[in-house]
């Protein structure tokens, strides 16, 4: 065990994946010698050589196109997109190509060996182009897996599982937590399961659900609610697609109430999918409407970021509203 921040955990996972399988290759803008603008790939080029860890030209559609081909060839491709806000030029290569590669070929070819890493989310005074949480765009795309860790321990285990999973995985890293989130991380190789939510805290009155950096927010809100005698069950979804319906249903069957909090704007976000599914699965057990505490339906702002985001106070208010419904 060692204390690591989230960035170190990512770097450590990449190191292990590259050591463990010599066909693993990491690349992206500034990923090589420099080690990435956040330094997630620091030291990898020195250790594994320029052929296996390198800078690409500045072209996201090319990075993912290249990664698709590399993965189809049988290499393990770990591509970095410098900010999730810049993943959209690669949207076609992800949504039309990576996601459909195996299906369209009848399993003659696949890009299961592809992982796309990208820092996402707000809270760093980044304005509308360094703060986005685009998970819902990918969640509407069968064939992809979408994974988001909440802390260093999760990050290492989920990233190793993502790299080894035989499907294309988009791994969004909460950049606000890169250095802020520090915790014990085993030195050895381990994996955490994809497609499984984690019940982080059990409780009886209401279920709070989130993922990534938003977990801190709901935990803080839950703490405040505990002061009011409200017992919160807290779930980290961890994998957005395919998501763990069963764990959420079981929780809501027990608590009868659900709040989902996401950083992304409300409309057509992934919280909506969860609400839609849970109202269907738990209809007779719901004691109040499922509430979504989300970003507003605008681009991500700068000066008024504090006002805009779904913070613990807004979640706390939603808890009270739900419990008193």
């Amino acid at each position, binding site marked *: 065990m060692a204390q690591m921040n989230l960035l170190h955990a990512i770097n450590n996972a990449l190191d292990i994946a590259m050591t463990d399988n010599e066909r693993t290759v990491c690349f992206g803008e500034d990923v090589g010698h420099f080690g990435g603008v956040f330094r997630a790939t620091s030291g990898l080029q020195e250790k594994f050589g320029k052929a296996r860890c390198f800078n690409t030209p500045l*072209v996201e559609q090319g990075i993912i*196109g290249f990664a698709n081909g*590399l993965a189809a060839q049988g290499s393990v491709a770990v591509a970095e997109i410098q900010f999730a806000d810049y993943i959209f030029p690669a949207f076609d290569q992800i949504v039309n190509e990576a996601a459909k590669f195996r299906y369209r070929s009848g399993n003659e070819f696949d890009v299961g060996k592809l992982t796309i890493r990208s820092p996402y989310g707000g809270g760093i005074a980044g304005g509308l182009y360094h703060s986005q949480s685009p998970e819902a765009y990918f969640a509407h795309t069968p064939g992809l897996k979408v994974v988001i860790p909440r802390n260093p321990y999760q990050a290492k285990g989920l990233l190793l599982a993502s790299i080894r999973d035989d499907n294309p995985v988009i791994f969004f890293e909460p950049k606000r937590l890169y250095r802020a989130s520090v915790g014990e991380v085993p030195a050895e190789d381990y994996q955490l399961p994809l497609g499984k939510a984690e019940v982080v805290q059990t409780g009886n009155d209401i279920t709070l659900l989130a993922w990534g950096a938003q977990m801190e927010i709901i935990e803080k809100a839950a703490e405040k609610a505990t002061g009011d005698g409200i017992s919160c069950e807290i779930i980290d979804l961890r994998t957005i697609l395919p998501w763990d319906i069963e764990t959420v249903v079981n929780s809501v069957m027990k608590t009868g109430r659900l709040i989902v909090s996401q950083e992304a704007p409300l409309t057509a976000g992934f919280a909506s999918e969860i609400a839609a599914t849970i109202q269907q699965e738990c209809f007779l057990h719901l004691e109040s409407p499922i509430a979504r505490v989300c970003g507003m339906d605008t681009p991500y702002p700068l000066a008024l970021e504090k006002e805009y985001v779904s913070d613990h106070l807004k979640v706390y208010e939603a808890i009270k509203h739900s419990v008193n419904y």
Partner: protein
Amino acid sequence: MNTDSYNEGAVVHTPVFIDGHSVEIPILKILQQDGTLYECAELPDIDQELATKVYKTLAFHRVLDERMVASQRQGRLSFYIAALGEEAASVGGAAGLKDQDMIMTQYREQGALMFRGFSLEDFMNQMFSNAKDLGKGRQMPIHYGSKELNYMTISSPLGTQIPQATGYAYGQKLQGLDAVTICYFGEGAASEGDFHAGLNMAAVQEAPVIFFCRNNGYAISTPSDEQFKGNGIASRGVGYGIKTIRIDGNDILAVMKATQTARAYALKENAPVLIEAMSYRLGAHSTSDDPSGYRTREEEEQWQANDPILRMKNWMLAQNWWDETQDAEIYERYRKEVLAAVKVSEKIDKPHLDTLITDVYDVPPVLLQKQLEELKEHINKYPDAYPFTAGKF
């Protein structure tokens, strides 16, 4: 490093613009239409056996295209794309490679797959989306693919295979294989952003990939002078620092020669090569298209005189590697075989209902399994509405 990023040229003190057309690009031609070689022309590696295989592939290609266009007209097939008049590009490319090389195509390169040995049945089963289709009946006709034959399954979105080919070739290089990747695309698709990405990355990442542009003058109805203003696609190679050659795409020997040379270079130097094959799309874009709306008969007729298959036949005859009787025979035989194969394939069942959910992931997720179960119940309730699958799962 900064001065590495460009070649020091002359220093001038009044503005000198370089013109879009300032780069001279020669065109490689080996075989003349009458079957004789140009003087001093350098042949590709080719013997009678290979030549015969190439020629038979061309003939088979012509027959298959003709028959399938006809089948589509008869309503037996939903869609087809022929390569009339430009068969030499795909067949010659494949013939210039080794079997272990990966072929990634756009959609008009069935000739390369024929050359590799994809069976008539495999073609048919794909086109009729039946249970025996390697692709499990999921893509429109002509979207073939075969892992065994190193022929990447075709994808409709244009240009996407270009950076993929770069990545594929990079992987081959990393593994130290004696293998390159060839990547075909049309001059229309070369306008996509993915083209720029793929070529630039191949140069920078030093990937052994052969970019093979079929410049056939049209992208559906759009003539190439509304597609770009440079000197063809070849002139772009310069901008990427990629070795580039322009060839007569209807000259099978030029295609083979260029591909063989490109392969050797790509492998030895770990570097990409760009080939631009000049040709003409003699037929409609696809069976959904009618070119009379956007071009003249005269223009088409002019190009009919450049038939690449007839050109190779003339050469084969002159070599005494082939005769007219053999020729008539194989055409006759291919026609019969194709017709028979259509009749077999169109009667084969649709793929099993379970294929609706397989291959989306390596293993179908719970929700998808549930969706399939619900579907099965539903089909059982209304079997008449789902005749292809009712009672078959």
